């Protein structure tokens, strides 16, 4: 079996001491920032991106991935114990998890969340391993025409995934594409939008853009309000769920895993959407829907399994097609490109060790998370009491020195400061930064593939519709857009996100 051989290749890398260490650091950091309400995976991963210049690609990707799914764990801990979801994906967990904590079942809720997550993590790692090669094989026959359409699909997905107005998200993608044009034009060698800055000739630094938009802008918009007093924390008594709770949780975890795995792969899907969908499903299949909202075990197990499964399967489109399905995946793609690996179907053949090591590390990371979380839950909870006053200067410090370290120059710091300010203005105008970042990453590739295709077709744009695969992809993109625009479904989507917020 190829799969077994591939997985053992992956595990041989993932189980190297060095990589276990990086995986551990990743999930540790991830759990910590998941618990901390002031800091999300986007800001943390941007903060650590400069490190990827120094580390080898396998270790750095393993660590960054660990942060992402570690954050799903940490988020649920805070949601259950203090009703303060650290991540948007654990908002649903807070509904019944916090009720359980109030009823003295905090330990059981935590254990169920952790066990459901590790179950989902294991299954969805298998899903990633099984489906990625198939998709990657299909995609490796793609030419520039198909690639262009695929990237359009990716951008449409980014637009749909954004909260709020569709038009504004489209604008943000376009701004990102425009920012991607900065620097020396690949085909003609002329300087575009560099305004005389030599530092801009190789393009706008991705890390500076990400840190500005995610870390700095976030600090600016929240620093004034985050001075409230600490929350009340519920005591953890017995850590183990009783048999009745376990029996109710097990099928819910299985359903959650299924729904999460599917929603994670879909462009525009993601952990937050998956956990909400799983909660709705549990409520619908339950014989006593009235239990929900009053400490239903299924309401913890289902969403927790779903958000973890979705966090893992959202790697599939990124790894196989080079399409990031959310902001974190865009950052992961950025990290790969920093290491001169261009994401896409060829990754599996050109860097099989990286590909399979990343997948294997997800499983390793899930095991580490359970070991890390259940016995040390008391320690994590203490983290919540760290005041934001101390936290944000620390974030600023890491960002400033990190930005300097990229090229040993201060230019990137100024760039990030500008984008921090602009990013804050954009957030205030209710424009989400993630689509902009996706546009920025895909921009140069989009232009290159457009150029090649139009060169082949002698300037005829109909080539995108006459090539069957390309036409099919564009049709999917169109369908996704229509589904979102249709008012009835649109209302429902806003409902989903307003509850997930």
């Amino acid at each position, binding site marked *: 079996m190829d799969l077994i051989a591939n997985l053992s290749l992956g595990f041989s890398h993932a189980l190297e001491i060095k990589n276990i260490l990086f995986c551990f650091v990743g999930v540790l950091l991830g759990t910590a920032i998941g618990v901390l309400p002031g800091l999300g995976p986007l800001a943390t991963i941007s903060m650590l991106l400069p490190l990827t210049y120094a580390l080898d690609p396998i270790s750095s990707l393993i660590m960054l991935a660990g942060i992402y799914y570690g954050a799903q764990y940490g988020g649920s801990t805070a949601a259950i114990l203090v009703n303060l979801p650290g991540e948007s994906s654990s908002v649903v967990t807070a509904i019944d998890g916090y009720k359980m904590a109030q009823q003295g079942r905090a330990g059981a809720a935590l254990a169920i969340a952790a066990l459901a997550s590790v179950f989902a993590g294991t299954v969805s790692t298998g899903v990633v391993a099984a489906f990625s090669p198939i998709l990657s094989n299909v995609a490796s026959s793609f030419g520039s025409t198909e690639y262009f359409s695929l990237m359009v699909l990716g951008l449409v997905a980014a637009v749909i995934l954004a909260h709020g107005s569709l*038009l504004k998200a489209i*604008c943000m993608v376009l701004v990102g594409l425009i920012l991607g044009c900065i620097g020396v034009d690949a085909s003609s060698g002329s300087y575009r939008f560099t305004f005389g800055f030599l530092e801009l000739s190789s393009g706008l630094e991705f890390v500076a853009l990400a840190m500005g938009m995610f870390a*700095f802008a976030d600090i*600016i918009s929240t620093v004034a309000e985050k001075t409230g007093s600490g929350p009340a924390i519920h005591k953890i008594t017995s850590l183990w769920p009783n048999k009745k709770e376990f029996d109710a949780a097990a099928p819910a975890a299985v359903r959650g895993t299924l729904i999460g795995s599917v929603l994670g792969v879909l462009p525009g899907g993601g952990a937050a959407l998956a956990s909400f969908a799983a909660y709705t499903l549990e409520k619908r299949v339950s014989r006593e829907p009235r239990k929900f909202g009053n400490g239903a075990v299924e309401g913890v197990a289902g969403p927790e399994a779903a958000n973890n499964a979705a966090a893992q399967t959202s790697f599939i489109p990124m790894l196989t097609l080079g399409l990031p399905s959310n902001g974190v995946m865009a950052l992961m793609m950025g990290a790969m490109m920093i290491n001169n690996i261009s994401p896409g179907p060829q990754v599996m053949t050109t860097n099989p060790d990286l590909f399979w090591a990343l997948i294997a590390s997800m499983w390793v990371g899930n095991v580490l998370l359970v070991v890390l979380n259940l016995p040390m839950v008391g320690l994590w909870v203490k983290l919540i009491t760290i005041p934001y006053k101390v936290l944000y200067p620390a974030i600023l410090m890491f960002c400033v020195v990190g930005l*300097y370290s990229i090229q040993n120059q201060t230019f990137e710091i100024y760039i990030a400061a500008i984008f*921090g300010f602009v990013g804050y203005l954009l957030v205030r105008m*209710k*424009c989400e930064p993630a689509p902009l970042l996706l546009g920025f990453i895909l921009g140069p590739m989009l232009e290159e593939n*457009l150029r090649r295709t139009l060169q082949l077709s002698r*300037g005829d744009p109909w080539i995108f519709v006459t090539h069957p695969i390309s036409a099919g992809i564009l049709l999917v993109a169109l369908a996704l857009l229509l589904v979102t625009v249709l008012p009835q479904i649109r209302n429902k989507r806003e409902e989903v996100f307003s509850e997930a917020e």
Partner: protein
Amino acid sequence: MNLLRSPDGQSGLFFTAFGLIVATLALQYPLGTPARMGPGFFPFWLGILLTVTGSLVIVQSLRAESERIAPLEWRSAAIITLAIVISASLLLTAGLLIAIPALVIISAFAGRNVKILPVVITAAVLTAMAYAIFILGLDLRIPLLWGL
């Protein structure tokens, strides 16, 4: 006026203006033909698309009932941005041991109820951390104090 007070209106104006500027700037580069795209081709059409979409956002904001935009956090925005810029300019001239305390102390004034002593302690601890992690640990080449 509705247009200037709602998030949609403001962002629509911003996107439209940005699109127009980009499209105009792109005209200084050769556009080429679709079959042989010049360096100005892609950015020019992106600018046009952004202008069109931005205007649609404006139209949308005029039709929908208005939602007031959150007040601008001028203080936070100015202080945080200033702290970053000042520490960047100090990093190579005065050194890490000046730049990091400056960053922490200036940025502290963005919060509410600033007390001097905790801020000084935070600055000292974070500077020590920066030294331990970036100089001792990662061996970065940053001047410590006036070129030392």
